[in-house]
């Protein structure tokens, strides 16, 4: 089924793509367009500078961070972790996604200096994936209890958890 018309960019997003490509050039490691959404992949060291430019540039004006999330791809051996930021521009009503890929144990600079709303999102990403955000004011467990062990949204973390809540199978004949 040909669905190429769904993947076309709107004129506003084409302008965004043009501006970011001319500004950052080779720093944008990958560009993808899917369902009318524009995604750029940048290196972890360019993370903050690209996000800052997206916010400060008057023509882009991505003044809001809609959400910041992590992801885990165990198949990618060198860079299994991914952090994505969904940006929104209220005046232009455009959206953009910036992603970066991280190795195990590699940290990322915090975006709380650009958007204070990144605070909870980064805490959640850290507790769920173990991605450390350098310079975050308070990188502690947010949704889980402080004593929680492990990073539950990693793919190797079992769905039923590590402790408690399991169905016991060693009770045969005892009940």
């Amino acid at each position, binding site marked *: 089924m040909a*669905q190429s018309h*769904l993947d076309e960019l709107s004129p506003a997003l084409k302008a965004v793509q043009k501006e970011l490509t001319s500004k950052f050039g080779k720093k944008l490691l990958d560009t993808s367009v*899917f*369902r009318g*959404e524009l*995604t750029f992949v940048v290196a972890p060291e360019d993370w903050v500078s690209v996000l800052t430019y997206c916010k400060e540039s008057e023509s882009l004006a991505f*003044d*809001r*961070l*809609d*959400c910041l*999330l992590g*992801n*885990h791809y165990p198949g990618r051996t060198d860079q299994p972790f991914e952090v*994505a930021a*969904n940006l929104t521009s*209220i005046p232009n*009503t455009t*959206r953009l*996604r910036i992603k970066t890929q991280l190795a195990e144990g590699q940290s990322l600079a915090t975006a709380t200096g650009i*958007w*204070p*709303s990144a*605070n*909870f999102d980064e805490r959640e990403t850290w507790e*769920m994936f173990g991605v450390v955000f350098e310079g975050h004011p308070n990188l502690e*467990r*947010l*949704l*889980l*209890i402080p004593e929680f062990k492990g990073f*539950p*949204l990693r793919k190797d*973390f079992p*769905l039923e958890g590590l402790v408690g809540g399991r169905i016991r199978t060693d009770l045969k004949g005892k009940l």
Partner: protein
Amino acid sequence: MSAPSQDQAPPAFTVLRPTLEELRDRKARTRQPVRDDREVLTVSMGPHHPSMHGVFRAVVDFDGEVVVAVRPEVGNLHRGVEKLAESLTYHQIIPLTDRLHYVASFAQNHGFCEAVEKLIGLEVPARARFIRTIAHEMTRISNHLLWLGIHIMDFGAITFQQICFREREYMMDMFEMLCGARLTHSFCRIGGVAKDLPDGFAERMRGALDFLPTRISEYERLIDQNRIFLKRAKDIGIFTSEDCAAWRVTGPALRAAGVERDLRRNEPYAAYPEIEFEVAVEYEADVYARYRVRMREMQESIKIIRQCLDNMPDGPILAKDAAHVMPRKKDVMRSAAAMVQDFMQVFVGPQVPAGEVYRSVETPHGELGFHVVSDGSPKPQRLHIATPCFFHCQATTPMWEGEMLADVVGIFGSVDVCLGSCDR
């Protein structure tokens, strides 16, 4: 009393709209200055506190009666929806989204289905889009009524909650008629809705819509002239548009700050592009403005439902797409093709393409976003839910600082937070 002279023209009616600078100024004036040299009293509000709208805990430092610092603590209701979703097919996730926000559950179903449909590239039939719009606006009315009762209770009027629940009951009854459930609807499906409108739905709905506006104006008479409410709501909790953008505060709180952003208009979905409605915008950015936005939104929702009922198209309520859509149960027992389709959807799941989308819809609380990452299998590789309440809980820090203890409860109520949605 002498009649006004004809040659003197009446003064033109002008709405005073404060600019961003004026609002910043007003915010600085209404907030108490925070001083470092004073001893603070640390108080833990919540998680079981009658004014906390759920199990939200805030550790607050007070200097006398003034809030110095806030540390919001969420997560008491964390159920691991995102982890759970990775082990379920897209059809099976729909009931989970109900439980995110149990007051506006259809809005959450709808948002998720819109996201999956965007991922698939699926077009929803016109009748299903109109039914979705009706259900979404019913959710908005029932949510705002519940919010209104609880919010006024925050200011000390206990009876008002009972009055609002009386009217909310009509919406609950309509939902029961529509899908059999009153709270957790699970009414949306990928590619359409679960059921067609039942017989007599339109008449009963029109009956409810006929008296709701009179009831809403009755509330407005009760509240808008209440000196206690006005004193405690006007110029309290000012949160300007730039604060909203920085802290991702959306929905009525954003529109109360003078920003005309409503995803029903800006990124249209369902039947909203074919329907005429106004986006309720207020400019004062305080607790009272948020209340006004919600009251006007209820009136708009009534108009939207009326238009949907009047222009309801005929046709199927599910898309014809065997690879992604669960067929209707009554067809499954009658046609072999539908039975095979049902079998494949239940045992294998929808065949979605690999890709990554972010879709957000305008729920009664704000913009609810679903970030779906698919690797081509029937289960999502990752589902992230950016709920408005998560960010509204976070925004208690800038909203409360410098305010008085007695106002904190009202300010928290005015942004409308549901902790089930926040903690996921």
